[in-house]
């Protein structure tokens, strides 16, 4: 009932006319003033439904939202309400939320980050579908800050047990690459691994990723070439297309041209080809012997795919044969291509396009199927024209009569385009085949008396072309055509006639008519099209040269008409002609040669297929279809003269292809395990991964239930909390939530405190001790092994840390200690209190107090100044020490000054000063206050009561004060900084370096703004500063690069702190 009601209101606000008259009325009534109001309200009810506890209501709301998304309406303002439901238990709600998220995450990046931890958790789910869909959504959210998380997720999923998850990982690779092309090197390694995957399910997607990310890395294919050929038949259809496309390019770089030995496959040297027919058998053998065995393997294994039901697979094989096969073998694809002509119209168009291109050079392939290209009246025009093109390409002496008879029926077709194209085609046949030229020409002339003007016009144009190619006198034909000039209105045809008349104006029969033609044209000059006008000028010029007596005046008349024409081309032309034919000065050199220039014999036009030049593009590609280079088109490399070493494709032992069974656990599991030994990773970090994997698969089973439950409880509370301030400010929510998520890192369980302190005692000063030796001793890297790999290993461990975020988020109890899979190292890292990082004393302490409450505003003559002492608070190390200077500026004594009514937000505590019994007039007292801001910059308000009168005071610290300085060696600094990449890193280019002054000045400015310590730097252009947040003890690392690209970088595990500190430092450096 509730949903019905809501549905009604929703319907009313929809823009489409509603069936219910009542709601329509309501919408109209609210239209003038309440338009925005209505819009606002529309989403209000959806929000309510999303916030409800009933899954059915949520589902209903999500369905309507997805409906809006599908229709292309903007539903982005519902983002905060929707994103909360990402944790929903209901699988359909969840799915729809995913769909929504992928659509809008890009626009609402901050809020989208809230959902990340859910996906991270889902990535460890025992259900492969959930793992895969989490990876899919995570990788589809186009938010740059999650690049490291994506990278880690992909790398983990690549070694997942489930081939479906691995497939999804392959799909995620191009997404990540689009988002951040800098990850390419790492992605290539992942792709390499996927390419060696044994399951057919994965291979297609792996090759797809390869094609998108690193198509130039043919070296990755060598080892997999034979395997790809072998499994090709079993790969799903779409994968087949991609693989064949890739293998075509690969083969072009690895094998030699099969048609190289004397027989070029263009059919120009047809006689030669026919001669060689007899020893065809022999040459065939010789050639196939010369073929590289791998080349033959490729051809042999792709051939069965010609029987695929999927037209794009057939086309892919056809193009492979076209580009790679010895020319005798190409014909095997013909049948399959012809079969596609029975498919959908769109398929026909594309296939015919390719056939048209192939038929230019491979007539014999399609000649037996000539009849399949006969035009039907039900074909679309485009298809008709393509068929006509193919028929023309295939025409030769033996079949020309047959084709011409067919053409004849097309001329009486109702389709005007077809008629026009047919006449053109006849012209081409006539020009190409000498035997029929005369027949065609007389046929075309017969068409000149056709009742259809279009036919006549088209014939004129074609005849003109034909006459040009023919030697000899065509006086009668031209004369006959000249008579048509009055009847034909089609500009191109008129232009063609005029040109012909001009060209043949010295011929016997034409010379008499020509001046008359010009006279007619001069009369209608003004109304002609531009093409015709140009030809009139041409004719006038030619006649004036050959027959000046009769036409000179006429010519001048036409020229002066053209002089004032609207079209500048025509004005230009006439200016040029005038100076040639009627030279104004004596020195006109060119004018002497005017006759030679105009009446020179012109080279005949070459009438040939428009598909002739398409060879440069790969058959069946979009570029080929459009005959223009499309973005992302890769040229097919030409065959190498000498084949590269074929032994690169040898695999040590031919691995049997293991078919995937429906039980993924046993066979694939073991195979992936076994495989791991030989992959690239096994050397550097496979142990690491294995450890993760174990924790992911085996342990999650044991504690997944508790984990998910507590997880959902957590997020539920999140949701409800953010509901309260839902209306205020969405950014606010996001910040709070992120903050709320992150503190869970800090309170590490007591047990770990213990182990950590033990480690601190036992470990030496070695800078690597923290991240290796305190984890399992069995898997620790030895220092010499770890040190050269530092740049590679560091980001990895950092990402571990990110991933573990949600684990520690959901399990904050000591339970975690019992999970063996969680590396201790990462836990130790979260708290960052390594032996090598020591607290330091503040470098700069402000001595000038600032005013907190003036005596005027306090209302009781009490002035309060404050100052950050930057000293460790005695009560708690996590508190900021604030020194208050209380000054009684009045004449009366103030009694009992104390803090009262402190209404502190969650996570913030305050240590107040002891109550002052009295403050005499004119006296000054110093008191200290400790506030634990909980690493947030929330304003802390409290009342300071003086003589029973409350004065409101607000403390809002700058981030720089929430830090305390620490020192460490440079190595540790760089090491730690390496872990804080991606989301945790904020940087900003410094623009005003010159104004900053020297290094010392910069340091001073920084020390003033933030309570940090300087780290000795061995590099001259780099300043390093370290600090630690007071309550969570997270490291804050600041690097200032001075040099060519001055840059300020702040790394902090707490993104909010980091970004705010960056903003503050930016300000500080500016001043």
């Amino acid at each position, binding site marked *: 009932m509730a949903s019905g009601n809501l549905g009604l209101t929703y319907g009313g606000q929809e823009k489409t006319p509603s069936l219910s008259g009542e709601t329509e009325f309501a919408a109209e009534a609210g239209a003038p003033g309440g338009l925005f109001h209505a819009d606002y309200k529309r989403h209000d009810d959806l929000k309510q439904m999303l916030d409800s506890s009933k*899954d*059915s209501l949520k589902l209903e709301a999500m369905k309507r939202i997805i*409906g809006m998304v*599908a*229709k*292309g309406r903007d539903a982005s303002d519902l983002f905060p309400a929707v994103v909360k439901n990402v944790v929903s238990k*209901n*699988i*359909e709600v969840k*799915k*729809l939320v995913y*769909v929504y998220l992928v659509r809008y995450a890009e626009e609402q990046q901050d809020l989208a980050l809230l959902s990340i931890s859910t996906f991270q958790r889902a990535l460890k789910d025992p259900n492969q579908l*959930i793992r*895969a869909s989490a990876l899919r959504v995570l990788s*589809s959210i186009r938010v740059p800050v999650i690049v490291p998380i994506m990278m880690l997720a992909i790398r983990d999923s690549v070694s997942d047990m*489930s081939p*479906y998850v691995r497939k999804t990982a392959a*799909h995620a690779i191009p*997404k990540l690459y*689009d988002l951040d092309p800098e990850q390419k090197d790492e992605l290539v390694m992942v792709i390499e691994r996927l390419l060696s995957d044994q399951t057919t*399910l994965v291979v297609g997607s792996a090759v797809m990723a390869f094609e998108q990310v690193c198509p130039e890395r043919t070296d990755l294919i060598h080892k997999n070439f034979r395997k790809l050929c072998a499994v090709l038949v079993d790969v*799903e*259809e779409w994968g087949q*297309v991609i693989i064949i496309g890739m293998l075509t390019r690969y083969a072009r770089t690895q094998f030699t041209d099969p048609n190289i030995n004397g027989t070029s496959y263009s059919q120009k040297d047809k006689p030669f080809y026919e001669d060689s027919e007899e020893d065809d058998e022999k040459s065939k053998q010789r050639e196939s012997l010369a073929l590289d065995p791998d080349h033959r393997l490729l051809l042999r294994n792709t051939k*069965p795919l010609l029987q*695929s*039901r999927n037209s*794009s697979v*057939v086309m892919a094989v056809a193009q492979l044969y076209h580009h790679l096969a010895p020319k005798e073998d190409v014909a095997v694809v013909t049948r399959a291509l012809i*079969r596609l002509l*029975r498919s*959908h*119209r*769109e*398929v026909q168009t594309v*296939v015919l396009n390719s056939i048209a291109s192939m038929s230019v050079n491979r007539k014999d392939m399609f000649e037996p199927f000539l*009849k399949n290209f006969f035009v*039907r*009246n*039900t074909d*679309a025009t*485009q298809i008709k024209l393509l068929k006509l093109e193919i028929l023309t390409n295939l025409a030769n002496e033996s079949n020309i009569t047959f084709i011409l008879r067919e053409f004849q*029926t097309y001329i*009486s077709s*109702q389709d005007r385009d077809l008629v026009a194209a047919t006449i053109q085609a006849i012209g081409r046949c006539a020009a190409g085949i000498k035997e029929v030229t005369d027949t065609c020409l007389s046929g075309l002339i017969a068409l000149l008396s056709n*009742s259809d003007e279009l036919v006549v016009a088209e014939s004129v144009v074609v005849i003109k072309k034909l006459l040009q190619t023919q030697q000899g006198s065509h006086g009668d034909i031209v004369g006959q055509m000249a008579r048509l000039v009055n009847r034909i209105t089609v500009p191109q045809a008129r232009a063609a006639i005029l040109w012909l008349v001009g060209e043949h104006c010295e011929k016997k029969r034409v010379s008499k008519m020509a001046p008359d033609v010009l006279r007619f044209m001069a009369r209608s000059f003004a109304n002609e099209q531009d093409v015709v006008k140009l030809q009139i000028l041409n004719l006038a010029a030619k006649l004036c040269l050959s027959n000046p007596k009769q036409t000179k005046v006429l010519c001048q008349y036409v020229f002066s008409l053209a002089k004032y024409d609207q079209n500048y081309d025509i004005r230009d032309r006439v200016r040029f002609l005038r100076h040639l034919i009627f030279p104004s000065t004596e020195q006109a050199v060119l004018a002497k040669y005017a006759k030679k220039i105009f009446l020179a014999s012109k080279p005949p036009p070459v009438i040939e297929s428009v598909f002739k030049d398409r060879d440069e593009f790969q058959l*069946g*590609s*979009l*570029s080929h*279809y459009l005959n223009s280079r*499309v*973005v*992302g088109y*890769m040229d097919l490399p030409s065959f190498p003269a000498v084949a590269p070493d074929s032994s690169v494709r040898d695999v040590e032992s031919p691995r049997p292809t293991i*078919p*995937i*069974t*429906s039980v*993924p656990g046993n066979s694939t599991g073991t195979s992936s395990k076994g495989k791991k030994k030989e992959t690239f990773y096994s050397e550097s970090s496979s142990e690491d991964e294995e450890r993760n994997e174990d924790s992911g698969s085996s342990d999650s089973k044991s504690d997944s239930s508790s984990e998910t439950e507590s997880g959902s409880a957590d997020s539920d509370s999140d949701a409800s909390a953010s509901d309260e301030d839902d209306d205020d400010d969405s950014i606010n929510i996001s910040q709070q939530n992120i903050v709320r998520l992150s503190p869970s890192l800090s309170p590490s369980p007591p047990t770990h405190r213990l182990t950590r302190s033990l480690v601190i005692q036992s470990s030496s000063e070695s800078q690597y001790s923290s991240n290796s030796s305190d984890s399992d001793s069995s898997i620790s890297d030895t220092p010499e092994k770890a040190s050269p790999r530092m740049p590679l290993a560091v980001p990895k461990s950092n990402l571990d840390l990110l991933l573990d975020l949600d684990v520690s988020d959901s399990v904050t109890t000591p339970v975690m200690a019992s999970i063996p899979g969680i590396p201790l190292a990462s836990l130790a890292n979260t708290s960052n209190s390594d032996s090598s990082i020591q607290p330091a004393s503040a470098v700069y302490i402000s001595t000038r107090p600032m005013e907190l409450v003036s005596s005027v505003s306090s209302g009781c003559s009490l002035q309060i100044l404050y100052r950050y002492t930057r000293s460790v608070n005695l009560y708690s190390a996590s508190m900021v020490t604030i020194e208050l200077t209380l000054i009684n500026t009045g004449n009366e004594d103030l009694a009992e000054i104390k803090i009262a009514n402190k209404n502190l937000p969650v996570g913030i505590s305050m240590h107040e000063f002891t109550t002052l019994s009295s403050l005499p007039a004119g006296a000054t007292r110093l008191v200290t206050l400790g506030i634990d801001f909980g690493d947030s910059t929330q304003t802390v308000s409290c009342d300071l009561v003086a003589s029973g009168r409350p004065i409101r005071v607000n403390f809002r610290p700058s981030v720089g004060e929430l830090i305390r300085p620490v020192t460490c060696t440079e190595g540790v600094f760089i090491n730690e900084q390496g872990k804080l990449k991606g989301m945790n890193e904020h940087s900003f280019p410094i623009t005003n370096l010159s104004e900053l002054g020297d290094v010392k000045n910069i340091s001073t400015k920084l020390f003033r703004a933030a309570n940090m310590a300087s780290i000795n730097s061995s590099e001259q252009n780099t300043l390093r500063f370290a600090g630690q947040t007071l309550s969570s003890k997270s490291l804050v690392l600041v690097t200032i690069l001075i040099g060519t690209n001055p840059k300020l970088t702040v790394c902090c595990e707490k993104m909010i702190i980091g970004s705010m500190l960056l903003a503050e430092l930016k300000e500080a450096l500016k001043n």
Partner: protein
Amino acid sequence: MIHSLFVINHSGDVFMEKHWRSIIPRTVMDYFFEAQRQVVKDNKGHEDVPCVIATPHHYLISIYHNSLYFVAVCMSEVPPLFVIEFLHTVVDILEKYFSECNESNIKEHYVVVYELLDEVLDNGYPLATEPNILQELIKPPNIIGNLINTVTGKSNVSSVLPSGQLSNVPWRRADVKYTNNEAYFDIVEEVDAIIDKTGSTVFAEIAGKIECCVRLSGTPDLTLSFINPRLMDDVSLHPCVRLKRWENERILSFVPPDGSFCLMTYHVGCQSAVAIPIYIRHNFFLPKENSQSQTGKIEITVGPRQTMGRVVENLQLSIPMPKFVLNCTVTVNQGRATFDPVTKILLWDVGKIDPTKLPNMRGQIHIQSGAVILQSTPSVNVQFTLSQTAISGLKVHRLDMFGENYKPFKGVKYLTKAGNFQIRM
């Protein structure tokens, strides 16, 4: 690969859009509409909208189905057939789900369609397109299912990965159970022909397909053999068919998908002369160009030719008249003839041919006054069926089932239809 999909209805509204990568604004469709307008201006049908349109930054690849355009937007090199084939696959899937892929069905099931689209492509690259897998992931909507879902609170989205996605038989869903196990095979042959004015055959060809409806429990393994497989010249096979066995023994051996599907299509070689089951005697002329009369004449008689002893049924002749024809007044001795003045098609629904009394149509063609008469000759598109026979003579030998213990009910049906059958007048 494919960035976005827009679905456009007959009146040119984009009523559905789906983006698999970054969002592409709807305005890109203006190029498509421009092309569409151009086609309308040129007096062409919807079929003539170019299927690939290049715009400055995008490439629009479209298919036309059931008065809907499915337009895929691509941004970089991609085999056009890949996209076209994919779009047709989407249409097929939607037809499997909603029995007909039309605007109202899509609108009614927005959410299901959207979920499906989300599943078929990932980042513009096909992920799961097998209907059997999809049907397990997302249940097709039906009334009873909806009722159950409302009562039990279950959703129609699966929470576990269909096993087919992982197995070597991705086309078959797992745990199929039927009380009645049955397998039906329809062998449908289509005659394509062009017959010229004089009645002689210019071109004729037979193309066949085997449509199956298999409802068998478990994982049956079927073999289908023919008496005369040599007739089949060129075949395309469903992925479930074992290629090796076909090549070596000409036997179709396969684990079928559940439900209905097309097992194979084949082509009967040109060398055997195709029996043309009907003939037409026609008499058609338009008034001469300069004559005063505004009427032409038409007369058609149809008769059976080589029908293999069967009756020609569902005979239908459609004659697209030239544009300048105003109306046709015809009388028929059988069936019903109508002229649509908008599409200018004269449609004669004949029905069965009775050899004793041949169907005949005669009448007049009225020309628009003042129109230029072009001597163009229409051609007749013929539809007919011959039931219980495959005109090529193809016969199924036997169907065997392995792998399961029950006895299925088997059936084979033959049908011959006119495919693209044209008679030029």
